[in-house]
């Protein structure tokens, strides 16, 4: 990051603010203004850009776990539940 101390300080403030909101950004839970703020910072910060890209990929894989075949409860357990319900 080039620039004087004030620019560096402002950059670090944006960096911390953005890093704390990457999940909300991916979940579409930020206001349009805050979304733009995240995009502006990630566009100029290689670290945040990389974290965002890998977080997006992690999230995609986590969501994919929902579609994994479910392990089955033993038939005996189901029978006992049917009797008790």
């Amino acid at each position: 990051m080039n620039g004087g101390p004030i620019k560096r300080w402002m950059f670090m403030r944006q960096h911390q603010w953005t890093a704390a909101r990457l999940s909300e950004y991916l979940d579409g839970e930020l206001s349009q203004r805050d979304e733009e703020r995240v995009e502006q910072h990630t566009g100029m910060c290689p670290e945040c850009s990389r974290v965002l890209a890998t977080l997006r990929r992690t999230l995609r894989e986590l969501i994919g776990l929902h579609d994994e075949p479910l392990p089955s409860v033993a038939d005996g357990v189901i029978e006992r539940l049917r009797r008790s319900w």
Partner: protein
Amino acid sequence: MRRHADRVYAVVLRFGAPGGEAEEIVQETFVRAWHAIGGFKGESQFFTWLYRIAINETKRHMTRRGTQLERVAADDTPLAEVGDPAPSPQLRAEHGELRAALERAVRALPMDYRIPLVLRDIEGLSTAQAATVMQLGESAFKSRLHRARLAVREAMEDYLDVEETP
């Protein structure tokens, strides 16, 4: 019944209960739900209500047994292999190393971080629903979820293609 029971079983396993104990927890969850069904007001979806009971039962079960529901050993059985002690080489290949590593990363999270991630990202609840299930404010819930995702991301970094664009 089978579909609901299997869903709760998968969730309880992901919360960190070992396979055999998870079946007991499923039974206790449904029995407790049956006794409390009169208190279900329909303000939340049935399954959201069931999740709440499953979390309580998991914690109760582990406390009773003196089991620490914290980090599960990293070499614990991936969920995809529970109930199938000898998955075929083909099945292993299909699921892939990445999915197995992902399951391990989730199970390595402390319980307070694992539950938000399981509910929101794997079970697909909305932030509001998952926060309600956990009896947390949305802000506190989001904070735990973000930390959990960052921890999994860090554990998975070697498996992820960082060159990928959005």
